[in-house]
């Protein structure tokens, strides 16, 4: 299993800050597809991706125990 974290507007769309799912061996791109099938209103196109608290690419392959975060455009400061 992996943990998937959602923030800001994405969190409100999903209705949860964290979901756990089976994704061992999937790429980040695969995971995005899986999530948008599950949550039809979820738009991840503009979100950056972090795996284990570092920015990652769509091709990154996930392993059990990873934490994936979808980072919508940030607005700190």
């Amino acid at each position: 299993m992996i943990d998937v974290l959602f923030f800001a507007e994405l969190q409100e769309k999903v209705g949860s800050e964290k979901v756990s799912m089976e994704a061992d061996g999937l790429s980040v791109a695969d995971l995005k597809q899986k999530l948008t099938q599950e949550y039809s209103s979820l738009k991840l196109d503009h979100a950056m991706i972090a795996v284990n608290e570092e920015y990652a690419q769509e091709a990154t392959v996930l392993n059990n125990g990873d934490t994936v975060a979808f980072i919508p455009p940030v607005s700190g400061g």
Partner: protein
Amino acid sequence: MDKKFRITEQPINIDACIKKVVRAEAGAVNTFIGTVREFTKGKRTLYLEYQAYTAMAEKKLSQIGDEINERWNNAETAIVHRVGHLDISDVAVVIAVSTPHRNDSFEASRYAIERIKEIVPIWKKEHWEDGTKWIGDQKENTSYEKDIPSEEDMNND
């Protein structure tokens, strides 16, 4: 409390942040304080709500400190960003940079706030009189939803 790069739910102690970078080699400490603005292009903000991916945000703030050290000689940086409910004029972020000479501290402080708006996972939710919205992409001055005028996404330096 001694961490130089941190996210907090409490009001920020500005002096404590500055003290983290004061040292004998420094002849300058530049402090940037970001506060909650009431009016943006005529639209009234009632309050803001900030959210962070805390663990990663603190790492990215620390990375900004490293980047400053690569660009300016002998700089010390401390950054604190507040999350949760913030009222008008509350302090949202404090950046303190000390360097041997003043020019570097001004430049590095400006660099830090711009980088925060690019890479640090912190989000601001506007609570207006007539609605709410998570704000995105301030550097581009556009919202990540296309249905709202760009001026509401802040010229927010």
